[in-house]
């Protein structure tokens, strides 16, 4: 069978790709488009490492077929920095040492960005519940939560 042609927007750029019907969006991001910023952890929707935004909605790219991306807008961790300027979340993850091995980090960044887009001033509890679908086996989460709260404060300040 011939491959499927999909037209989509990824990180602000119009992208077309060919895929097999069984391939997930994560497979295509990493293995076809070579956008390896998005990570594969469990592949079953439990760890959140593959988190992306689909039309602004946080989803696991491992639990979505690439064919479903037709006509949709996808945002990954690779669209967060502007050139050399890191997103405030990325900057605060560095400052707070909110990562060790780094595999979970892209998923946390994308998920945290989605949270702050709809709730610019979350409580610590809200951050923890929102990020419950992102697993980190290194940091123990406290530094991640601190980084998200610090980034939120900076982003609110920038807008004021």
């Amino acid at each position, binding site marked *: 069978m011939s491959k499927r042609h999909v037209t989509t927007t990824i990180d602000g750029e119009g992208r077309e790709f060919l895929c097999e019907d069984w391939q997930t969006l994560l497979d295509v991001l990493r293995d076809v488009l070579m956008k390896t910023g998005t990570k594969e952890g469990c592949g079953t929707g439990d760890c959140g490492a593959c988190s992306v935004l689909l039309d602004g909605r946080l989803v696991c790219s491992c*639990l979505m077929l690439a064919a479903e991306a037709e006509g949709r807008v996808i945002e990954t961790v690779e669209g967060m920095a502007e050139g050399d300027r890191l997103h405030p979340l990325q900057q605060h993850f560095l400052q707070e040492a909110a990562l060790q091995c780094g595999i979970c980090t892209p998923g946390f960044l994308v998920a945290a960005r989605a949270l702050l887009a709809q709730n610019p001033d979350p409580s610590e509890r809200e951050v923890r519940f929102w990020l419950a679908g992102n697993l980190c086996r290194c940091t123990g989460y406290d530094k991640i939560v601190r980084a998200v709260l610090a980034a939120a404060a900076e982003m609110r300040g920038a807008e004021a």
Partner: protein
Amino acid sequence: MEYASPRSLDEAIGLLSQAGVDARPMAGGTDLLVQLRTGARRPELLVDLKQIPGLCGIDCGSQGFRIGAAVSGAEIGECLPLREAWPGVVEAAELIGSTQIQGRASLGGNLCNASPAADSVPALIAAGAVCTLIGPAGRREVPVDDIVRGPGETALGEAEIIVDFRLPRPQDGTGDAYQRMIPRTEMDIAIVGAGVSVRVAESGECLACRVALGAVAARPIRVDEAAAALMGRRPDSEALEELAARASAAADPIDDKRGTRAYRTRVAGVLARRAAEEALRRAGDRWAARSQSS
């Protein structure tokens, strides 16, 4: 495996009928894509239902609510009129998985996956939700209570799909609630889930009650004998204790790593009572709001 994304119900039913048992309908895909990955299911055709208008969107009409079977948990949570009318159904839908899963998982998928522990199902049964099914033989309406037969098994015919869920406008004095017990704070499968809806008179007398339990039998169960403990009386602590005892008596759970049979049986009563208390509180709040506004 091939993927199809039909734009109409006719097209979807046609594709599913043609492929027969080799086809599988998909809504959010959060259970199904995991089953494909593990090899638990090997369909030749996946029919994505999310592009069909009838399965999308929530309508809030004067008669009641229509929730598309493929609507995501996140969209359900954002629908304020639905949250206001049926808070128990909405809180149950929002308990399915993480934020990421909420972006995709649907009521139709949660029901058709037919897990005994599905969170939205006891709440929908308690609320008296009815689903619209469409298949090669036409359209029929079936209470949610009659859909799940056992683990992974439903009453749906071949090539039949769930289109939407209907809930009435709640009458005065109605309240519903869903409570779930899991071994940790977030992201786990229910040891017990309890959905309760009540309708109380302004005097506090209970006029109607439905109790449904998840994860304590091979399918989500409606426990009418527990509901009967409140009917026709003011639900005092004696009545609620009776409801709890009857809920525990109806439980026939498994023993597994999440909870022993004895523990699940006991928790079934505790949660049924707590859900009933919350539903009664909400029903009372509704009367209070009504008398304030008049």
